[in-house]
């Protein structure tokens, strides 16, 4: 039995890894505009070399053709050092290898707040901000959906249930959109909360004051997402629980006279939990990519706004780095979930597909 699971996992693992490779390679092609970004980099390199040579007093005695030859020579050399003497098609595979081994290299234009050009440091500097904001948001959303859904599925047809069904269409408007309204109300009109950003300027030196300031800045973004996605979450969960509570074994449990809370826990929640957990973990991982527009509306210095800045100025290494990290996180999560289910699911244990 173990060998069956192992064989299945190996197969899935390989498939997932190949998927990641292809996705990352596609990103490299797109982010480099099929090699066009190279031309930008080369032009800039040539320009900076020719400037430094022409301004260097040591070469003052050279005539124009000599200077040009010198520039070309230096240029060719620097191309070789950064590996640009090879064609793009060849280099794209080197990029792929580096990306997959998480050797993310240096950013073309961006630098971290601490002044580093390393893509890894730039990303790691922003990642905690996004994780902080969106993990908090997703956790709150998850529990609201779970408990309100359970509660309403028990009181199906009651007034709160009808209201929740009525409000579900409100979730067709995205979080950032509610964000704009919340900014108008709480920042612009009432002047209670900040317009955006993550911490007061200048940042408080005291630890506690710093944390409180961050918390204050988190209120509006979190609130905007809760307004947007609570209703649909509650609606979906409620419907989901309702479908399961009409299963025969639930009816049987009721007929046996088991207490309501036991039925909920053991007969409704337990069988529905796996898909709910899968859903939640995938949502959580994709939320770490940052919500680009929410982060822009609230000026939140996270991964989403980093992605935006990087794509506007064509900072390919940063873009590729972000996609690689995302793809790895997603693939690992999927893989981990599959292991768990493979062990739990009798069908897979029995050797089906």
């Amino acid at each position, binding site marked *: 039995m173990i060998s069956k699971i192992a064989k299945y996992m190996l197969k899935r693992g390989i498939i997932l890894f190949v998927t990641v490779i292809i996705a990352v390679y596609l990103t490299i092609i*797109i982010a480099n505009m099929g090699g066009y970004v190279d031309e930008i980099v080369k032009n800039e390199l040539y320009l900076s070399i020719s400037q430094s040579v022409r301004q260097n007093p040591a070469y003052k005695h050279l005539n124009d053709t000599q200077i040009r030859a010198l520039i070309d020579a230096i240029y060719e050399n620097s191309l070789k050092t950064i590996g640009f003497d090879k064609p793009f098609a060849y280099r794209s595979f080197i990029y792929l290898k580096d990306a997959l081994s998480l050797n993310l290299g240096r950013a073309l234009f961006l630098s971290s707040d601490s002044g580093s050009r390393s893509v890894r440091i730039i990303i790691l500097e922003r990642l905690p901000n996004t994780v902080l904001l969106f993990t908090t948001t997703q956790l709150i959303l998850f529990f609201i959906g779970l408990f309100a859904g359970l509660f309403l599925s028990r009181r199906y047809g009651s007034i709160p249930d009808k209201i929740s069904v009525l409000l579900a269409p409100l979730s067709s*408007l995205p979080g950032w959109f509610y964000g704009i309204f919340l900014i*108008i109300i709480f*920042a612009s009109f009432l002047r209670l909360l900040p317009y955006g950003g993550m911490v007061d300027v200048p940042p408080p030196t005291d630890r506690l004051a710093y944390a409180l300031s961050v918390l204050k800045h988190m209120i509006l973004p979190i609130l905007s997402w809760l307004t947007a996605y609570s209703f649909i979450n509650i609606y979906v969960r409620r419907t989901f629980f309702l479908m399961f509570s009409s299963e025969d074994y639930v009816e049987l449990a009721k007929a046996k006279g088991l207490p309501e809370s036991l039925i909920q826990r053991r007969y409704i929640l337990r069988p529905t939990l796996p898909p709910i957990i899968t859903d939640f973990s995938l949502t959580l991982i994709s939320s770490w990519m940052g919500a680009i527009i929410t982060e822009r509306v609230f000026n939140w210095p996270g991964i989403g706004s980093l992605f935006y800045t990087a794509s506007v100025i064509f900072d390919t290494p940063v*873009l590729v780095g972000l996609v690689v990290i995302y793809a790895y996180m997603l693939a690992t999560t999927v893989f981990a979930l599959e292991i768990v289910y493979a062990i739990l699911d009798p069908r897979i244990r029995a050797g089906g597909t």
Partner: protein
Amino acid sequence: MTLPRIKQSIKQLFAYKSALAGLTIILILIIISIYTIFAIPYSRATELWRAGEQHWLDNPRNAMPSWINIFSFKKLPETIVLNTEKPQSGVSKAIIPVAEKFSKIKIEFSFNYEYDDFPSEINLFFKSNFNTSAPQLTIHWVKPDGKDIILNTILVSKDDRYYMSSDDKLARSLRNMISREINSTINYNVPVTILLFAREDDTICNVDTARVMKGNYRLWIDGIVFETNVNLDVKLVVYGKVYGWAGTDHLRRDLGIALLWGTPIALSFGVTASVSIALIQMFIGAVSAWFRRSVDALIQRITEVFMVLPFLPILIMISTLYSFNIWVLLLIIIGLTIFGGGVKNYRAMFLQIRELPYVEAARAYGASNLRIIFYYLIPKVLPTIIPSMVLSVADFVFLEAALAILGLGDPLAPTWGKIIDDAYTNGALYKGLYYWVLEPSIMLAATSLSFAMLGFALDKIFNPKLKEM
């Protein structure tokens, strides 16, 4: 789906109040779209939207919509345009040849100013056809109390303008004059508009207490030109603080154009995207489920690759590289999503359907693969996907807005997202120009809510399992 069934579904649909409300809003939006397409052709709309400030010079900057006056005690001024080229009451022009090489010009504008707030700007525009000698003009200002002030004496070129409200020298001299008269100094940087229109007493010393002197104002120009047969036309624009039914933006553009044109663009964008994506995804799902084996495996692997790629970032990357028009953008969005997660759902549905007896019967009589897919598989699933198709219209309407807010939309098209983006980058929320953000937002919200309400009702009709709940 047979005709009676469609009829029955429609009947069921009308039983839901939310669906009815949604349909009504959609109908209104469609009427607005049709009106817009015929009233302002697209080419003209984009032209107007990109015309730059020159074209909109007679409009106030950042003016609120006019109907705001209905709701406020303080009547905000409309824009007053008086032009000697267009004869109307309150405008008079006389050019009198006095001697052989010498003409006198007298131009007079008079208008009633009964508003509670000061104008936002005052400009004079001149057009003249002299040969060598430019007209010399003395500009007078007469307040309702009859006091005549000489504002300036200027020489105008053939096509000239005088931005009175940004003339600092004028502001200083007026301020000194009024300070002397009311015997107290005005301490703040008082704009020309207030100096020209305020009551001259102690209230003017503070920007919050300054009150408009209501009544009949006159601006008259006394000029001489050392030529005969000279013509001079002058236009006086007293810019208000309200404009039209939608207001204006920072470039004096009428927001109404973008609000109107945003409607057909949003509708066609949202509907095209959601319908074509759903249909293509369904087709791919059907192919995958019908052929099984290698075709299935290939399609599933491609789907997984697309699921690993973060959609919005990739879309942003592609649209930064090429700034294309909105329809190419639509094609790219469709291209990026046709292998999305939906394919897996459809495949799961088709896997069940392909085992049904009637499909087997079709295969037995020798129907081709395509025939089975199009005539036997897809029609079975089609009704169940209508709700999600309607629901996802809202997503794509907002996707377009989101791209515009990131500055990546069609640079030409006047859309709702564009207005929000302009408002955001020009700090509308800090400056309290709420109408600028609220108007397009309300349109966006109405559009997506209407589709969402309809979609939820359809969901209950087509997925009867939900209806019981």
